[in-house]
């Protein structure tokens, strides 16, 4: 329990850093961000200009820095991220509500599949060190090293443009169906998510596989694996319960560490496929210099990663009896 509490405290500190960074960045860069924003709307009447200036409470404000800071915290806790500039005057939180589910489903599922698949392959590759699976690693490495979106572009080109097997992009075909719990919509959405999901899996499997393979190789030479063989245990028991179960722990920790990157890559994927998730929205926000939305998305993504990290910590504690009693002595 103490272990988890320490981790939770750590994530709270990280969250605090993120929020504070978010607060300071617009105030720290050269130039007046208010002007940058307002310069996009040159033909506002002076009253509208003033109103707009006041509305951008999350970006600039009146009063001392400290009071602005507190005010900002208040907003964050009420999920008040300000007003979206591109779709003025829609609140940012409303815009986010539409896109978060798409990202969660696509990125969440694809990442978990990639991790499970990669880890499974890594177990095999590590056990059969030097076998054909192990030797195919450089091919996988190529997919890992290539920029996500490049692979995506190539796949889209092949599957969607040259051969019209799968849709080019977007979450669903707006002309054919509309959002709702209907089979027509869900099947359409699934069809549109195949290519993005496949790309995410293809480009990230190599990393997990390589990592698990390396850990397996060192784990196999541990005494308890030799002891398992000396005991005459079946191969599957030795591989899975003795070797893999132990190798899984550093692998999970690596997963936790890499979550930030994983999420980043998946976001780029959305951009390539024009998939209506947060990543795509982030891009639009950047291109429109829509700062409130940009910063809100940053916070949302960061919090999501922190929560995911906490979940991974929970899983690790579940699998590692030593972690449960760590810090207890």
């Amino acid at each position, binding site marked *: 329990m103490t272990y988890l509490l320490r981790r939770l405290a750590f994530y709270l500190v990280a969250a605090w850093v993120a929020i504070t960074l978010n607060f300071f960045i617009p105030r720290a860069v050269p130039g007046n961000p208010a002007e940058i924003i307002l310069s996009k709307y040159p033909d506002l009447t002076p009253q509208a200009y003033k109103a707009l200036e006041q509305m951008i409470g999350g970006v600039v404000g009146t009063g001392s820095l400290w009071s602005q800071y507190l005010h900002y915290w208040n907003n964050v806790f009420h999920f008040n991220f300000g007003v979206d500039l591109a779709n003025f005057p829609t609140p940012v939180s409303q815009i986010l509500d539409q896109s978060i589910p798409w990202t969660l489903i696509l990125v969440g599922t694809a990442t978990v599949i990639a991790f499970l698949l990669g880890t499974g392959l890594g177990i095999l590759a590590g056990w059969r060190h030097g076998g054909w699976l192990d030797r195919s690693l450089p091919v996988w490495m190529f997919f890992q090293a290539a920029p996500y979106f490049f692979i995506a572009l190539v796949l889209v080109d092949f599957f969607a443009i040259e051969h019209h097997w799968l849709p080019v992009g977007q979450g669903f075909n707006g002309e054919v169906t509309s959002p709702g719990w209907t089979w027509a919509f869900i099947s359409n959405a699934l069809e549109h998510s195949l290519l993005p999901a496949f790309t995410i899996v293809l480009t990230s499997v190599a990393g997990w596989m390589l990592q698990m393979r390396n850990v397996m190789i060192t784990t196999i030479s541990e*005494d308890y694996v030799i002891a398992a063989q000396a005991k005459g245990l079946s191969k599957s028991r030795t591989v899975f319960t003795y070797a893999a179960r132990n190798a899984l722990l550093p692998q999970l920790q690596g997963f936790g560490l890499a979550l930030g990157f994983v999420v980043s890559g998946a976001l780029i994927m959305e951009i390539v496929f024009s998939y209506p998730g947060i990543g795509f929205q982030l891009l639009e926000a950047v291109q429109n210099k829509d700062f409130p939305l940009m910063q809100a998305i940053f916070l949302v993504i960061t919090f999501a990663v922190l929560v995911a990290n906490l979940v991974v910590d929970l899983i690790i504690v579940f699998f590692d009896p030593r972690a449960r009693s760590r810090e207890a002595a």
Partner: protein
Amino acid sequence: MAPILEIDDLSVAYRSDGGDVHAVERVSLTLNAGEVVGLCGESGSGKSTLAYGATRLLRPPALITGGSVRYRGRRITQGGDPADILTMNNRELARIRWREVAIVFQSAMNALNPVLRVQDQILDAITAHLKLPKHEAREKAATLLDLVGIPRDRLRAYPHELSGGMRQRVMIAMALASDPEVVIMDEPTTALDVVVQRDILAQIVELKETLGFAVLFITHDLSLLLELADRIAVMYAGRLLETGTASAIMRAPAHPYTQGLLHSFPSLHGPRRELVGIPGTPPDLRDTLSGCPFIPRCSHTVPACSEVDMSLAPPNGAGDGPDRPGLITVGNHLTACPIVTPEEVSQEGVLS
């Protein structure tokens, strides 16, 4: 009666790009049923390699380059010909491993699976070889812990929750899970403090008396073996230098290396004498040495030392054969040292 485990002329090498490292060179050793044989040597002498090589548990780049390891347990041979472990396929090996020949590893902390409870690990050993219903297997596991003096509630514990001594006892209990005929103990008490050491050793002796298995006890501590073992084999640089009964070795060590070992630790009784170590370092095992490997550190060498055939074997007659210059066999006390004359080697006709 024929020995239950007969290691004959075994050689084990580690392959590397820089040449083979001859870790074990033509070693012959026998183990009789119910006997305790101590294998003594310093680090790097090849004693662990010998034991793990004989059971084929060594990992690449190890390679067994010669010899045979014959096992005569009744379950396997049914009174017929002995089975050679070195020629067995995977299936036959699985039947021998643990059921016939069990191993107590050196470091219990490393040899126990950190993520499994003690009970599950012992059950693994039981169910891999004995077809028992679940509750009987669990009862057997509990009984095993009773045997080694561990309270039953420790069954649900994880390895890291146990003390060092307890872990070692668990290892011993696990080794006995399927009633083996031979138990190889690889420095089981080296990592423990002296008090715990004595407890464990006493436990081992008691278990051996009760269950009747043979023990190959590997250690660097000759003093332990003098009390524990029936016979002792002294190993150095991959070769056996001397074998004999414990009392023979203690009273009249034949090889200068054995003498050096005995003089390296003080005895509680008798007059005070100077503690002498053995200067020098063991040889590089990549070179194939001829003759006795101890030559560089020995203060009694003669020219014959570099030609002596180092393979000791049980005597099948008295005296030297033409192909075994230098081998001196007196009763069961063997050594290949040419400077020792038969008169200097003590007679010990009865196995203790």
